[in-house]
């Protein structure tokens, strides 16, 4: 196994464990807390603003002062962010649809993954539905659904 692959897998485990722990400690895994944050006209709970603040306070300086100055990652792999800078209908409609789902139940992908160990049917239902939603979106983006809607690629023949 190459050194870069070892680093990729080891860092995958470590950062996944850190990410899941952060989700649980911060309260993001509690749908009531998420809804309480989004309920700005009701009994507003601003806690999740502290989650975002804490995450950006750590990530932003490391990115701009360390990562951005490097040509490759420590593993030797290229950085994988997209070069696409266009704000288009696909991005905005996707964000609207995601936001609707997030507000509807108070779950997003991170908290769902960190909560699977809780062993409830609720998380299982959310996760399976989410996977089905992702597969639909992949087919849709490839132009395999005949819907005249955002993000539809007309040039696909199969």
């Amino acid at each position, binding site marked *: 196994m190459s050194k870069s692959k070892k680093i990729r897998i080891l860092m995958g485990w470590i950062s996944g464990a850190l990410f899941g722990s952060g989700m649980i400690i911060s309260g993001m895994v509690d749908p009531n807390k998420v809804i309480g944050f989004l309920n700005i006209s009701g009994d507003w709970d601003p806690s999740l603003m502290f989650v975002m603040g804490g995450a950006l306070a750590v990530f932003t300086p490391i990115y701009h002062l360390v990562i951005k100055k490097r040509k490759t990652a420590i593993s030797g792999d290229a950085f994988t962010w997209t070069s696409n800078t266009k704000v288009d209908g696909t991005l905005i409609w996707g964000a609207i*649809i995601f936001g609707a789902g997030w507000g509807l139940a108070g779950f997003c992908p991170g908290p769902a993954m960190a909560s699977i160990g809780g062993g409830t049917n609720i998380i299982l239902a959310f996760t399976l539905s989410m996977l089905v939603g992702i597969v639909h979106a992949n087919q849709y983006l490839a132009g395999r659904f005949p819907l005249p809607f955002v993000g539809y690629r007309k040039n696909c023949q199969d």
Partner: protein
Amino acid sequence: MDNFTPWTSLAGGALLGLSAALLMLFSGKIAGISGVIGGLLSPKKHESSWRAAFLTGMILSFLIVAPLGFTLPDISGENILVVSLAGLLVGFGTRLGNGCTSGHGIIGMGRFSKRSIYATLTFMASAIVMVYLRGLVGVT
């Protein structure tokens, strides 16, 4: 404001930022959870093993925080039909919009990406409207 938890939320958020920074610094990868999951469903060479490892770490993280006194909340009272519909919307929307709260909200915003700033403002607004509509029909 009964449930206001600024310190644990700040500490948990800092861990999310640290995780995203380490993954990018060491492996060059983006810790966007919808992207990590989505990538496993349409796998590319050298792109599956780290994603599987990352999700394994996430799934087992409740064992790491348990000795510190943190537990998963009891969510057995949620409506499974509503949750399932929400899952479909979240899955479809995050693929279409190419990210969720982690990818756009933390990493994209931290990189000052214009796409991520627009996406984050849009899904926040959409979610706030949805919660308001929930309130109108009496679901709180």
